[in-house]
């Protein structure tokens, strides 16, 4: 029987791989931490990756990195590669709370400490440490500041929230924090628009423009991430409502993250407040958790970053802790 040429070629490849598998895997190596990010789509993630590089370097640890480009399956593959390289710890920004569970189990099986940065996993029997911002509390506190500003101006404001990707638990926490704050202030705020963005600037902009057409008198906006601010600014400019605090017609504007755009807008008076994730705290906590785990200690399953609200009143005092202030664009 004639064997097709293509299959002969495939058999050759299999033989090549099988033969290669017996080769030795290398000598002594330094303590290495694999850092896997879901994506580097926003300044926050880029700043965090840089902070990891700095913190790991400061502690004499070696970092290898992998970015999954938003693909949960690719991230599984990349972390398997970390395990193949026998890393000493893994820091993970998961694409999805559930889809990361196979990754946690693989790391557990390999006996490698694994810490999730900024996004917690879904409930499971897999062991991990998650260092996360208290999205609910920080968003609620930020919106409470906007509500207080609304009360101070003496007018009841129509409000809009730009919601993130609800597959991301951080987006859910921020939305819930917003809702909790406005529920407590029916005298000052009425929510008229909830714009889904799926963490996409174009969708956010289209949604905000539509909301302004339906409700031209919107007077308060909260965005679930500062990286959507340019879309909101564009829509506000189109509607002739992009004004500094104190100017007539100023729309109260709040955000979350504390990026460079937010810092610039706060300094110029266009943004009223933003909830800042303390990237330095979160990064330090992740690395410390890896080291503690390796030493046999039992770090808690969740480490909360309380973050802080920054506004014009405390800008000078808090700016040194705002990561966006350090990466401010020229």
């Amino acid at each position: 029987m004639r064997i097709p040429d293509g299959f002969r070629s495939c058999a050759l490849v299999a033989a090549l791989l099988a033969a290669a598998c017996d080769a030795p895997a290398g000598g002594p190596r330094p303590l290495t931490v694999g850092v896997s990010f879901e994506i580097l789509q926003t300044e926050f993630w880029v700043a965090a990756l840089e902070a990891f590089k700095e913190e790991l370097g400061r502690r004499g640890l070696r970092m290898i990195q992998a970015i999954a480009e938003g693909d949960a399956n690719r991230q599984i593959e990349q972390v398997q590669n970390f395990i193949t390289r026998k890393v000493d710890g893994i820091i993970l920004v998961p694409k999805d709370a559930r889809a990361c569970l196979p990754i946690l189990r693989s790391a557990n099986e390999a006996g490698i400490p694994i810490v999730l940065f900024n996004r917690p996993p879904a409930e499971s029997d897999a062991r991990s440490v998650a260092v996360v911002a208290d999205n609910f509390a920080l968003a609620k506190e930020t919106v409470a500041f906007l509500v207080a500003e609304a009360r101070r101006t003496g007018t009841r404001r129509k409000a809009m929230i730009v919601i993130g990707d609800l597959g991301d638990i951080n987006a859910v926490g921020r939305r819930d924090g917003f809702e909790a704050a406005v529920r407590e202030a029916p005298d000052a705020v009425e929510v008229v628009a909830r714009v889904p963005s799926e963490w996409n600037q174009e969708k956010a902009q289209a949604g905000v423009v539509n909301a302004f057409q339906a409700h031209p008198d919107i007077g308060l906006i909260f965005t679930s991430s500062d990286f959507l601010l340019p879309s909101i600014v564009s829509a506000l400019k189109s509607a002739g409502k992009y004004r500094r605090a104190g100017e007539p017609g100023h729309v109260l504007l709040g955000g979350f993250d504390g990026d460079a755009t937010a810092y610039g807008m706060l300094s110029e008076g266009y943004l009223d407040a933003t909830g800042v994730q303390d990237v330095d705290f979160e990064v330090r906590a992740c690395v410390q958790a890896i080291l503690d785990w390796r030493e046999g200690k039992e770090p808690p399953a969740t480490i909360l970053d309380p973050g802080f609200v920054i506004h014009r009143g405390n800008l000078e005092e808090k700016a040194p802790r705002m990561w966006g202030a350090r990466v401010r664009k020229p």
Partner: protein
Amino acid sequence: MTGDATGAAGPPGAGWKRLLRPDLFVLGLCAAYAALVGPFTPGFFTVRNAENLLVHALPLFVLASGQTVVMITGGIDLSMTSVLALSSIAGAWVMTPSGPLGGGPAAVPAALALMLLAGASVGILNGLAVARLRMPPFIATLTAMTFFSGLAVWLTQSRGIGPLPAGFNALGRLPGAVGIAAAAGAGAHLLLSRTILGRWLYAAGHNPRAALVSGVPVALAVALAYLFSGTLAGLASVLYTAQGGTGSPVLGQRLLLDVVAATVLGGTSLFGGRGRIPWTFLGVLFFKLIDNTLNLLDLSHFTIMMVKGGLILTAALLDTLRNRILESS
């Protein structure tokens, strides 16, 4: 029609020109790349890495097999990523403990059937749009991709569905994944090389007008190609979903370029009439080999993207050069 086009062995080239055949060419690329980069790549030559490489190449191979069949007809299927997502959430919805069959013995078989059915349904819609309504494949499948991706997100409100049964998740690992991918690849290969439909597909892609005059039911063949591609995308969704352990409405959103690149790297023509499943396997292998080694090397994300693009471009240029040499002889 050449030997390449029918999928049967054509007249063998003389001497070294045999090495320029698509399968041997891509195999040579794989071997040369592994030999050059492997020794400098920590952990590359290990059993664990070989398993990892294989397990994650298999779903892409299943997808690319469907894409090969469509490309042979001169078309392209851009809707594959939306099929991945739609099938993923449909199957997960059935299987998850809170789903209609959650926990029951019929959950996994029913979910598998639903996942394939979802893929086949999108496939036949594409096929009818291209073959009957004569819509350009690019537009028809792009529209399908947009619609069904949006549908998947809307149905789930962007939330993943899980947990999924352990029996289902095992399908994404060895040896289950190998069995599924081998069955899909063998089925596609036999379809193209051993059936009358396979000959119709090559004929339709090579010269549709001549094929029609010769009595080939071109519209039927093209429609069936899209049906086949959609079904294989549903099958690939089984593997991807099992590997992730979650039904995801955004599954494979960024895989389209990988599928097309791997298929074309394997020697399948974007203009139709040429392609074979074993070539596609080698194209996928080369593509994943690049991914794997670049990930194992200590390179930054931005460097990886640039190097990957450069390597694929180099491979494509070498392929063009190879074709020119063969044509000139």
